[in-house]
């Protein structure tokens, strides 16, 4: 016979759950934390409302520069009146739909590639076609599109171009360098070490200078290399050296047993790396790799020093216009937001990727 056992349902005391419980447990658990909470609240009170008043209430949104100077708050007009130049630089005004479309294609491809289940052959073709189309749109010259020289490219498309190509080329190059540095072949190893240490020994700025000023001196008369391409190469070379060191850290974390197990079932060096070692090592180093990529993304703004008009430079140009002089706060806040969106989506994606890849642990 079965006896129904009646257990009176016990719920935790009200002070331990719900909003009150959370506040008590997290903000006021102890004297020190309570003081911290109060100080923080006070600072927030001092900072946040005035900022909102400046940014949203007293601000001017769509006026001339003159009108802006009357407003007590932020002058967002500097953005709204100049956004076409900030975003596209000297790209011919009537043709600016082309870089816009190119960027939309890029975002579309990036967004579609987020999902790892889409990483199949068709996606690779889509990227090849997409990249080709983007280049065509930017450059023109056929299909009735007027030709636009790359010296006129600027703004956000330029920044994205440098970043996307820079990072996607630097990553595999970095992996190869890392493998080379751990190679048994002494020549390869020495070359990789030399490369990595040389590149890490100089700042990106000097690499950019070299590629734009010194490098052309060695070219024969009349031969020129596209300036953007040279900057691009400098960024790739620079970033790959740092990626290489991060990846090397991951490779060192792999136990000898993994190599031995792979070899003992007959996998050769290439397959051992590709199927066993790299999938694990690269996964371990996702966080530092993404840090490197994020900082490389931001470093693309250094191309201003070789007179390329990336996003930051176009913004600064607007600021040098007498009508808009003095509104640098607003302009830089805007640029910061764009950069933040880029960096934040990268780190977000890396977290998603890490979670997906951690099934085995």
């Amino acid at each position: 016979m079965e006896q129904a056992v009646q257990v009176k349902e016990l719920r935790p005391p009200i002070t331990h759950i719900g909003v009150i419980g959370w506040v008590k447990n997290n903000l006021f658990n102890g004297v020190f934390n309570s003081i911290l909470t109060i100080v923080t609240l006070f600072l927030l009170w001092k900072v946040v409302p005035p900022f909102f008043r400046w940014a949203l209430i007293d601000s001017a949104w769509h006026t001339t520069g003159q009108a802006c100077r009357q407003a007590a708050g932020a002058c967002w007009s500097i953005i709204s009146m100049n956004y076409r130049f900030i975003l596209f630089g000297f790209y011919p005004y009537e043709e600016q739909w082309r870089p816009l479309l190119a960027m939309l294609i890029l975002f579309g491809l990036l967004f579609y590639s987020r999902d790892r289940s889409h990483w199949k052959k068709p996606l690779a073709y889509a990227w090849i076609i997409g990249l080709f189309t983007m280049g065509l749109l930017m450059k023109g010259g056929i299909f009735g599109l007027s030709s636009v020289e790359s010296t006129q490219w600027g703004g956000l498309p330029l920044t994205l171009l440098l970043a996307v190509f820079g990072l996607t080329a630097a990553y595999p190059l970095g992996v190869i360098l890392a493998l080379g540095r751990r190679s048994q072949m002494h020549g390869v190893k020495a070359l990789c070490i030399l490369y990595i240490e040389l590149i890490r020994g100089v700042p990106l700025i000097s690499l950019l200078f070299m590629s734009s000023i010194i490098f052309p001196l060695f070219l024969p008369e009349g031969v020129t290399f596209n300036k953007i391409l040279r900057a691009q190469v400098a960024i790739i070379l620079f970033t790959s050296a740092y990626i290489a060191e991060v990846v090397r850290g991951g490779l060192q974390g792999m136990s000898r047993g993994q190599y031995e197990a792979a070899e003992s079932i007959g996998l050769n060096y290439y397959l051992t790396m590709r199927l066993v070692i790299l999938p694990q090592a690269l996964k371990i180093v996702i966080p530092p790799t993404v840090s490197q990529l994020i900082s490389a993304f931001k470093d693309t703004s250094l191309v201003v020093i070789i007179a390329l008009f990336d996003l930051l430079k176009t913004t600064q140009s607007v600021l040098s216009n007498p009508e808009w002089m003095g509104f640098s706060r607003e302009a830089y806040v805007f640029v910061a937001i764009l950069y933040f969106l880029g960096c934040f989506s990268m780190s977000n994606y890396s977290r998603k990727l890490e979670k997906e890849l951690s099934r085995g642990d």
Partner: protein
Amino acid sequence: MNTEKKASEGQMIEFIDVHKWFGEFHVLQGINLSVDKQERIVICGPSGSGKSTLIRCINRLEEHQRGRIVVDGIELINNTKNIEKIRAEVGMVFQHFNLFPHLTIVENLALGPIWVRKVPKKEAEEAAMYYLDKVHIPEQARKYPGQLSGGQQQRVAIARSLCMNPKVMLFDEPTSALDPEMIKEVLDVMIELAQEGMTMIVVTHEMGFARSVAHRVLFMDFGKIVEGNTPEEFFKNPQHERTRLFLSQILH
């Protein structure tokens, strides 16, 4: 079971005066050993005597510096193709399992056949399931190694080697990283393998296993094979003082 006469169909592995040094340290000091097809050999000896090094030379995880090693008619020389060929014929089971943690159990098993033997994926996974069945864990196929117990992982490691259809299996202390209650399940699988006529070289201190399965037990010390004999003789009449000392230490 070792009383039954082993079918001698020729040699599987031959060591001829093999030497190896780690730097200055002379770890293998003239090994001569011949292993017949379907023969089962247990190697024991004190820690550091060179047992692991010896069997790791067979599939070139370690390189010998003098003498010759011939595996199934192929001499081990410094040639990548040659080494890969021998590795595909020689299965190895490690003390610490060394499964690939980022792959599921089935993927672990099918990896070698797919990439080394170029077997189609579907066929390789079917074969993988067959061998998982043989080591009694078909139900774990879709899990990851980290979700399995030590004994289960070691059985998967055995199945992974078997998937390559090896002609000889090497075991380097396959049970010494396991909790006592899991040792038996792994030894049972190895005994079943022996019954099917697999050529096996096993480094172990499981003397019960040696007694019931081995055709020959070898004792190694200081880089040499000190003596080798049938299990009965080996345990009853050890010839050397060092063997006697070693046996008295490990048999309680």
